[in-house]
């Protein structure tokens, strides 16, 4: 277990003088009202979508031909996605297809904004949702004692985050994702409109003033209250109002669509947002999951694809409205599902999964990863798609190449052997010749 006493200030003190100067600058409440403060033109936004339940990767991206198609069809006589006819898959390349309910994401794939990674996931030997989710969100497979989430460690160690942003991170929804464990910078929010104090107008200011003093303190509860007051102040000052998605984008109804819209709104409001997490649950399809022609999984995939498609459209534009050029969005799940369907017309917990990466600087239109095959000797435990790419390899590349954070050893302690897959184009803000190793404090491991 890593014992770190690293604060961002300590870390930044070791960095170049330009960044240190920003770190030392002060911000009073008056300055909160300036929109765009800290929102540099080259500030990347990372959006992490977590699909809770373990999505059926083999039906999201099924094999198209060869002996693997044979094994796939043999194991899924009822649930297979056909290659032609009604409910047929959408062709990604000569080897793989995409579930037909994911049209909007297929369009993004074809235009080169979406990449698919197959046989990716957690290398730990577990089929437990809760184990797997904890390992992934804490960023330490095998160890659940970690006191920080991986995104917390990214925020702590990233040299490209000036200290003047007050809302660098949002956990969409009403609770804070485990990836933000230990962070006091993540704001849990369902929508900016809901994020106001709403007291009696004669007394509200006096209440807020009192609360600010009452909640002044250095321990967890006081910091939660202070952070809440700060977030409310900031968002109210930016006057969110009603929001109309750009380019005619229409989000699906429901909290997933609402959360995506809220994040899009916050990106455009220029509060300096850098990381956002959104959950979509319901993927644990042990029964009656349906195939390409419809059913439960189809509906959920349509909601996912529709939401992400609307999000991308909403953030597309030219010049200053070209938000997708600094967006990288990842989709992942805690594991995939078993190759063989079960007797309840569904699938059980598996292992290898699919990740997707979407954004204006993604080398899309390709399927990445090392396909292990579906012959029984090639399966994990003789039953599931194997994992040949550690999910941390995908996230590390995004952190380094897009988010400008080279400190992946801190974000994913114990992860070695990283090489880029080539998923994203570099947009790093690190000056050439900058060696961060010189500035890292000693780490006790």
């Amino acid at each position, binding site marked *: 277990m890593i014992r770190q006493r690293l604060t961002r200030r300590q870390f930044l003190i070791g960095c170049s003088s330009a960044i240190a100067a920003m770190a030392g600058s002060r911000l009073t409440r008056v300055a909160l009202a300036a929109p765009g403060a800290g929102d540099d033109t080259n500030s990347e936004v990372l959006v992490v979508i977590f699909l809770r339940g373990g999505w059926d990767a083999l039906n999201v991206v099924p094999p198209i031909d060869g002996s693997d198609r044979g094994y796939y069809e043999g194991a899924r006589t009822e649930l297979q996605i056909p290659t032609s006819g009604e409910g047929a898959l959408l062709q990604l390349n000569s080897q793989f297809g995409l579930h037909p309910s994911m049209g909007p994401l297929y369009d993004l794939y074809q235009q080169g904004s979406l990449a698919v990674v197959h046989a990716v996931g957690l290398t730990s030997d577990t089929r437990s949702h809760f184990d797997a989710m904890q390992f992934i969100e804490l960023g330490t497979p095998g160890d659940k004692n970690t006191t920080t989430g991986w995104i917390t460690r990214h925020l702590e160690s990233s040299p490209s985050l000036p200290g003047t942003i007050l809302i660098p991170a949002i956990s969409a929804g009403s609770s804070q994702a485990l990836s933000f464990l230990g962070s006091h910078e993540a704001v849990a929010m369902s929508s900016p409109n809901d994020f106001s104090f709403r007291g009696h107008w004669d007394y509200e200011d006096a209440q807020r003033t009192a609360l600010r003093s009452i909640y002044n303190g250095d321990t967890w509860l006081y910091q939660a209250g202070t952070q809440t007051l700060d977030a409310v102040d900031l968002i109210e000052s930016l006057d969110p109002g009603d929001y109309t998605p750009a380019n005619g984008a229409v989000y699906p109804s429901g909290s997933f669509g609402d959360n995506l819209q809220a994040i899009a709104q916050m990106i455009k409001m220029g509060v300096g947002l850098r990381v956002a997490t959104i959950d979509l649950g319901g993927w644990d399809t*042990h029964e009656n999951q349906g195939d390409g022609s419809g059913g439960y999984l189809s509906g959920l995939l349509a909601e996912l694809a529709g939401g992400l498609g609307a999000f991308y459209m909403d953030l597309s534009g030219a010049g200053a409205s070209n938000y997708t050029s600094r967006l990288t969005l990842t989709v992942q799940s805690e594991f995939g599902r078993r190759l063989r369907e079960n007797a309840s017309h569904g699938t059980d917990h598996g292992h290898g999964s699919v990740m997707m990466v979407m954004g204006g600087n993604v080398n899309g239109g390709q399927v990445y990863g090392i396909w292990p095959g579906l012959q029984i000797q090639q399966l994990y435990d003789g039953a599931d798609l194997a994992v040949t790419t550690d999910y941390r390899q995908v996230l590390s590349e995004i952190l380094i190449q897009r988010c400008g954070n080279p400190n992946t050893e801190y974000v994913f302690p114990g992860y070695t052997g990283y090489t880029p897959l080539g998923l994203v184009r570099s947009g790093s803000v690190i000056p050439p010749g900058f060696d961060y190793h010189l500035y890292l404090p000693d780490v006790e491991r």
Partner: protein
Amino acid sequence: MSELNSEPSISRQGALQAAALLGAAPWSEMLKSWLKPDASTQPPRPLREVGREREQRVIPPPPLPPLGVIALNRLAFGPRPGDVAAFNALGATPEARLQAYVDQQLNPAGIDDNACQARLTGAGFTTLNKSLGQLWSDHVVNNTTGWDLRMLPLVETERATLIRAVYSKRQLIEVLADFWHNHFNVYGWHYYVGPVFVHYDRDVIRAHLLGNFRQMLEAVAKSTAMLYYLDNYINQAGGFNENWARELMELHTLGVENYLGVMDPFSVPLDENGQPIGYVDNDVYEAARAFTGWRVDYSSWEPGVGQSGAFLYYESWHDRANKFFMRKYIPADQAPMKDGLDVLDGLASHPGTARHIAGKLCRRLVGDYPPQEVIDAAAAVFLAQKDAPDQLKQVVRTILLSTAFQNTWGDKVKRPFEAAAGFLRAANAEFTPSDSWGWNYGRLGQPLFSHPAPNGFADTKEDWANTMSMLQRWRLANALIEGWVEGTTIELVSQTPSNLRTPNAIADYWIDRLLGRAMHPVENREEIVGFLAQGRNPDFDLTDEQRSGRIPRMVAVLLMSPDFQLR
């Protein structure tokens, strides 16, 4: 299966194995892998100091409040006016009072709850007394009205639960019902769970929560709600469905801390009693096979199946072959249901289950990271009394009378349900559940019986001390005192003794009334006084108009304060 990367620390299997080999008390090692280390000993993580002008106060741990305050915030949904005084009258010493109070609460039939009962009767509920058969008949089979009628049993249970949390004198039962509903979580809005929710709440959860765990487990396993929720209703031989079996082991009994992953069952180390120290995937599959045929009596065309909605053991779906569950041989062709009952027997008597349940109860009743001694003591009682009809009552009693219980404060934050019920109780609200209440309360993040995943709502401060939860409970407090929530009225001015007219006196009255102790840090009191005084001398009388305007909004600030969020 070898891992691709080296892990930084010892694996759980390694820890369990090492502990078993050393013969050391393995409980604490296993728990360490489950419970996070005591966060209060880690230095607080500083806010973004860069960019902050204000000076942060150093906050020491809060002092221990009087035992009555502790008890009423953890065995109950917070004190109503007079509750702490009644607690203090139960004995000459704090320990004597606690024992008397706990024993009272553990004997709910001896507590006169007529006032609450009158409210339940007056609410006009129609489903709460229906049997499972009536529920199924009225709300499923013969329901021509639609979704609202189908879900009425769930909605009424939710409303009744709210009324009880606020008004029942049998508070410990309400706290425990909340615990067990989360432990054996089902999604109330599931198409087949909603209509039978009255049965699940009344006959499965509440009927067993002071009883025997093995009995409770069987009631859950056979409940229509759980059979649908975790898919066992279609678990059949030839292609078993693992969902129920997996969560039975991972959440309801042994817990994921005793899960050894994908591993050969013969490689699992044994404890000193020859039992495997944990379970593996194979055990999940064997358990799933053992429960094949445990279904619901609801079909229009299958032979031998009716439409009652009750539990049905369907032999033709049962996998009759022999099974090997956690190193125990289950022979083929046992008596009907015996396979599944054997699995339940094994799980209910495993020390890992004792530790898991004890740990969770301690976490709910004591603190987020309870001391090892109280967990061990509770686990020991759990195991020793595994056949006793009042096993769970004894376990809870052990926890509540422990020194850990009496000496722990402020290690937990109220979840939204506790915070909201706490507001209503402390303010002596006149409360009737309504849709308006539902919308306001739902935003706090803990809509009752609506957690979709089987693990139930989380129970540590990290999960609830976040901006959305804080902001929404602040908003609820204001909405309540402003009268914006239909069906709820709170008269704070008339509850303030009329002879108290100065900011100092009024502040002290309400701080004592709502918190039962000084604010922490003590100087926060000045903010409350200052709010009432609005710049004038705090020893000058307020006018009637000033009193009626400022008192409610000041009470709201107290309800929003950090002190009120702790338990």
